[in-house]
């Protein structure tokens, strides 16, 4: 391994770790407000977390495939899918705003939307 290789490895790793840190701290919010399901880039369904009282199962059946998701009061996951890699099922629960689960073969994106920036109060 040459010196150039080491520089490249350190650079790529460094950039990756820094941007991973930035994504985790800046992009992912705390709690989510609603779940948005998109298929092929278009809105398929939307659920508000405060309307979910008990665990709810939603089946997504489209021309691209089948996914079954489970929604709880503050988190969501994919329980079943007909895609070959099952990566969406392996992804497990997501519970933070802006996090997402993607099933590429079925073109499904499940993401959590956060609170719109609202002010609790203004002090003068």
């Amino acid at each position, binding site marked *: 391994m040459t010196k150039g*290789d080491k520089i490249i490895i350190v650079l*790529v*790793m460094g950039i*990756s770790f820094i*941007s991973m840190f930035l*994504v985790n701290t800046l992009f992912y919010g705390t709690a989510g407000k609603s779940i948005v399901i998109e298929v092929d880039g278009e809105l398929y369904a939307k659920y508000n977390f405060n309307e979910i009282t008990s665990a709810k199962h939603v089946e997504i059946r489209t021309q691209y495939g089948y996914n079954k998701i489970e929604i709880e009061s503050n988190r969501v996951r994919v329980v079943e899918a007909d895609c070959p890699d099952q990566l969406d099922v392996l992804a497990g629960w997501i519970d933070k705003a802006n996090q*997402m689960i993607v099933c590429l073969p079925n073109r499904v994106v499940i993401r959590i939307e956060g609170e719109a920036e609202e002010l609790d109060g203004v002090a003068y």
Partner: protein
Amino acid sequence: MKNTFKIVYIAMLIAIGLVLHIIESYIPVMVSLPGAKLGLANIASLLTVVVFGPATAFVVSAVRALLGGLLTGGVSSIPYSLNGALFSTLIMWLVYRTLYPKVSLIGISVLGAAAHNIAQIFTASVILGNFGLFTYLPVLGIVGTITGYFIGLTANYALGTLKVSIQTQRKNGGKT
């Protein structure tokens, strides 16, 4: 004679890439790292870049990605692997041209893996119309650097043997 010789080598490199592509699809993914893979087939692309140059390397990686997608049953994944393979071949060739031998096959392979990941995520973002997928790039970058290191190391070993083999063939006019 020389042409036949080249055709045979290209066919062999495609075959090697294809077999590695298929073997890789049998390795189960333990955790959820969408798009993360060993990139074994990249060995063939990398060797082609070094031995035969960019034009041949594009053919080898494109044919490998197409046939690999068909043979492993992942037809819907062809756009991702095709774009990934072509873009990573382009980057590997550029790095090879400008920085080799200051940067060995290891560095070339690491950057090739990074390019593959970027192209793959870009393709997925366009297909799904969601550029938020790029938040996943850092994780792939880390995994790709580790796998890219080992792929480069492997290609380094293979290159020595391949070069000797090609020289012997050329000297003997195609006869072994």
